[in-house]
């Protein structure tokens, strides 16, 4: 061990450059996995941020790649679903359209969401000020609006908007509430939404349809049976048509597996660079063996066995890669923290990636060290001694 350290110290620059390959490989693994995991965590947080035990019912086949199918659901169907679920307060509705909202000279393009009084029962959507929609608002088609936090800030600045007027597509509304900032889900900036009664929205947009139904299950165990019950009921009502009901678990599963795969791919690419670093180690060890042929011959003459020599060179190679591995981990962790601090990319360092990178780098040392070390061990002492 001391001999190996000594040998590495003698060729400082060469050892450092060889290690660099391993360092880059290991830190790349740590950083890329941290970014992949960070992204996954962030999206999972977004999904969880919607609320808990939510089932989203949409007409047609849910397909992330295609435009949503033309909806054939209306408020009558919502009443029907409420009967199917049994508890009307756990079902809410949504109809959406992009509209311009104007206050004085300020204007913003927002997503107008027509919904009802049951939003807070299903989604996690805390209010900052004011109140939620009421049953009367929906029944009497009142022109009231709840603003997303960004919309409120944009239109009113520091002024309290409660009770003030806003114009959506030329129709005057009264602000009754402002939501807390909740962030984005799947690129939908929920702080840029405004909520109005579904009945008011249908008239404003000029449709009788709704876009989707949100159902809050009473517990995780109820999600799956409830989902089947709702889809079956809708298919029974409209034979031959398709309806989808997705749960957060499904979303988490799909997104999680996609991002997990992405992380894996990133790790694999980084792993290749680690492999290249390993080849560098192998190469340098071969050079070292050749350069120290005489020393090997001498050691053999003095009584070193094959395995003594093999061990010596193997320890050198492993030392080279493990030192490189440790430095690479430090660099990787530091780099991840730096990325997290300086950019919006979330990075989450995982123990497994650190352990894996370290294990692989040590393994690379053994794997790529064996061939040169065996060559050293097998050298004929006579030939080795004569080498100049």
């Amino acid at each position: 061990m001391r001999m190996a350290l000594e040998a590495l110290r003698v060729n400082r620059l060469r050892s450092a450059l060889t290690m660099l390959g391993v360092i880059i490989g290991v830190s790349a693994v740590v950083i890329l996995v941290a970014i992949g995991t960070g992204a996954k965590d962030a999206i999972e947080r977004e999904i969880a941020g919607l609320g808990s035990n939510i089932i989203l019912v949409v007409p047609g086949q849910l397909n992330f790649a295609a435009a949503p199918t033309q909806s054939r659901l209306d408020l009558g169907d919502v009443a029907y679903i409420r009967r199917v679920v049994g508890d009307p307060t756990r079902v809410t509705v949504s109809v959406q359209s992009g509209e311009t909202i104007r206050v004085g000279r300020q204007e913003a393009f927002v997503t107008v969401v027509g919904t009802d009084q049951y939003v807070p029962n299903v989604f996690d959507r805390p209010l900052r000020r004011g109140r939620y929609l009421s049953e009367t608002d929906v029944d009497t088609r009142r022109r009231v609006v709840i603003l997303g936090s960004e919309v409120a800030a944009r239109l009113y600045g520091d002024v309290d908007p409660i009770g003030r007027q806003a114009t959506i597509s030329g129709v005057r509304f009264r602000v009754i509430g402002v939501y807390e900032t909740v962030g984005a889900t799947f690129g939908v900036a929920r702080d840029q939404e405004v909520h109005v009664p579904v009945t008011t929205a249908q008239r404003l947009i000029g449709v009788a349809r709704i876009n989707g139904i949100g159902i809050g299950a009473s517990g995780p165990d109820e999600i799956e049976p409830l989902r089947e019950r709702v889809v079956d009921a809708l298919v029974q009502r409209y034979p031959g048509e398709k309806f989808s009901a997705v749960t957060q678990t499904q979303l988490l599963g799909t997104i999680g597996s996609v991002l997990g795969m992405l992380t894996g791919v990133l790790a694999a690419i980084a792993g290749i660079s680690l492999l290249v670093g390993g080849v560098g180690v192998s190469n340098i060890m071969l050079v070292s063996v050749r350069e120290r042929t005489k020393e090997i011959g001498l050691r053999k003459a003095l009584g070193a066995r094959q395995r003594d020599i093999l061990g010596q060179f193997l320890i050198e190679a492993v030392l080279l890669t493990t030192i490189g591995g440790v430095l690479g981990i430090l660099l990787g962790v530091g780099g991840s923290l730096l990325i997290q601090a300086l950019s919006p990319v979330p990075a989450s360092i995982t123990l497994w990636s650190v352990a894996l990178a370290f294990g692989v780098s040590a393994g690379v040392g053994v794997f790529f060290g064996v061939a040169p070390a065996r060559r050293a061990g097998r050298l004929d002492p006579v030939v080795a001694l004569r080498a100049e």
Partner: protein
Amino acid sequence: MTAFEAIGLTRSYQLEGVSVDALRGVDLTIGAGEFAAIIGPSGSGKSTLMHLLGCLDRPTSGILRVGGVDVATLDDGQLADLRNRTIGFVFQSFHLLARTTALDNVALPLVYRGVPRGERRNRARAALEAVGLEHRLDHRPSQMSGGEQQRVAIARALVGDPQVVLADEPTGNLDSRNGAEVMNLLRRLNGENGVAVLLVTHEREVAEQAHRQIHVRDGRIEHDTGGSVTLA
């Protein structure tokens, strides 16, 4: 008790498909405690003979016993062990580890014998004292003269208490004064410690300092002054 016993020893090499006979049947007995020189011109096979006697190489045919053990029965590990315990090597070009102190150079053979570090250093220090280099323990080879380096090498050959010291042109890279000093040391070793010394040289004056001269030419022993003069 004999240090070496060779019967009909041959060694041939394959060089680009051509067989070259370096040794063509050598019968030789070196007794324990002997001081002998193998002398011959270059290409005579004296180095090959020394490599065989030093167990660095195996004979093509013939029998070689080192310290009474037939080397043909030993595997590589046992052969390494035999080298380590019974033979000390001194080379023409010293062969010291360049960036290692005299003390650690001398202690090296003991590393392969599994001697603990503290004892290794004590024995190495004693060996260096025996060759008069107690003031050079922490010097590196580059900080020492050729004569001093060769004395370090002799100390390394001695540290393991071998039965024989094989010295391959030990004075070849030294001036006459340092050469004489090294020869004195080898002679003293032989006289005081009873270690057999086998010199390999092409210089007549060096060879004549030994008690017995074995002349080698064309892979055979041409003349042996003292086959019967076995001491002890």
